[in-house]
């Protein structure tokens, strides 16, 4: 369980990244923070592993204030996936995956074997273990990033727009894989994105942010779609623009669902 207790982040320049933000993220659930760039979502994410220290307020993990924890130990106990992959370019894929266990002093064949298992778990051929990050495609690098985040078996995964830099088809594939992994592993996942579709697809709980980390609305994807709190949210989820207004047409005995532009989305059964 992750709790934000009225946290703020104000930079010395006076810029307010996050103001009086409070949120409770239950264990074993996926919470997506969604908003445009500059809304403070990455800042909030990075507060959980103390890459950003709040100017005021507290962040608690399982009711313990993380400010009291050792920052390095805390980070090793939390999985982190970045948009760019953030793999170490001078280390092989396997060495990248097992970075955190090795930092914790667990070297040796058991760790390496576990690393290979993780590659398989995220849908990669273990044969790429001896390759280097630059030899992999963007999508593969993201999978390695996920494997690395899982290596020390953390309870919490922080994901900062992890699929933002890959093409839409691969992104969809990675989202499906993450959902599969989550049903298998049941981690507490905080997922930051600017893509509302991604936020809806992955989040048990979705938090729509406006600038300054103010919560515009939070709830399940169904709640937000069916009852947007205000025009900001309905704009953001595309309800007003007709992006989510669908209707059915019958075409040779089958009912096809089309969006506002008349583009077919699928067949109704």
């Amino acid at each position: 369980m992750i709790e934000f207790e009225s946290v703020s982040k104000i930079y010395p320049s006076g810029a307010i990244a996050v103001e009086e933000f409070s949120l409770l993220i239950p264990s074993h659930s996926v919470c997506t923070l969604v908003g445009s760039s500059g809304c403070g979502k990455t800042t909030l994410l990075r507060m959980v592993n103390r890459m950003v220290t709040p100017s005021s307020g507290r962040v608690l993990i399982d009711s313990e204030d993380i400010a009291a924890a050792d920052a390095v130990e805390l980070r090793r106990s939390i999985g982190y996936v970045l948009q760019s992959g953030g793999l170490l370019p001078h280390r092989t894929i396997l060495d990248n995956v097992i970075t955190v266990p090795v930092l914790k002093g667990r070297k040796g064949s058991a760790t390496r074997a576990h690393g290979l298992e993780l590659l398989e778990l995220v849908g990669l051929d273990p044969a790429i273990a001896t390759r280097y990050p630059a030899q992999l495609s963007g999508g593969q690098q993201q999978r390695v990033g996920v494997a690395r985040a899982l290596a020390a078996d953390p309870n919490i995964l922080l994901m900062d727009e992890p699929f933002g830099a890959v093409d839409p088809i691969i992104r969809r594939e990675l989202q499906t894989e993450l959902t599969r992994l989550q049903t298998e592993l049941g981690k507490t996942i905080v997922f930051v994105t600017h893509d509302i579709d991604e936020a809806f697809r992955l989040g048990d709980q979705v938090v729509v942010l406006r600038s300054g980390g103010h919560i515009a609305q939070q709830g399940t994807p169904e709640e937000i779609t069916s009852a947007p709190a205000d025009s900001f949210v309905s704009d953001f989820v595309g309800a007003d623009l007709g992006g989510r207004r669908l209707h059915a047409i019958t075409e040779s005995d089958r009912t096809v669902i089309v969006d506002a532009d008349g583009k077919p989305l699928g067949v109704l059964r």
Partner: protein
Amino acid sequence: MKILGQALQWLSDPQVWGGVEGLWARIGEHLGVSALTVLLAAVIAWPLGVWIGHTGRGAGIVGALTGAARALPTLGLLTLFGLLLGIGLGAPVVALVILAIPSLLAGAHAGVSAVDRTVIDAARSIGMSTHQLVWEVEIPLAAPVIVGGVRTAMLQVISTTTLAAYTADVGLGRYLFSGLKTKNYAMMMGASLVVVVLTILADLGFSVVQRWLTRRTHQLSRCPAGEY
């Protein structure tokens, strides 16, 4: 051209090469002093360069320091330290260390500060301590540039170590100083050629190391994307 012929003739004499004061021994001394000097300079320049590159603090002094130090005349320094320290190896080593520091400092600073910020951020985010970040990420990734600094420093030091003979009976400079006194220009020319060859060989050697490190640390795609 006549002098070149005489120089080659001097070099072709096996007697010149052998013995405790022969060319081989002098080459050994020369390279030994050069290596010692670069090593001492590295002990001073690397920690400072890595620290400045890591923290980003004091980057301005690198430029100022390297610029100023490069303008210093080594012979002048040698004379100064010779007067202070007397006859012996001390003065030339100090002067050569000062000569070598700017290149090593610039190499370490440039290498470390050029490491991709997202890689550093990622390394920190997954739980590397500052110590691990510096030793396991920044230095390995900066290695090719750091070695580039060694390459430049080595080049300058090997050619300038000839000055060590000014105050000490050491290195290939002996031939130059005694040749000047005895008007043995063939010997001076011959010894100079040896210095030139040593410098070129060292440069080639370091360029190989540098290329190997670059390949190791900055793996480039060797297979077409999407092979897997």
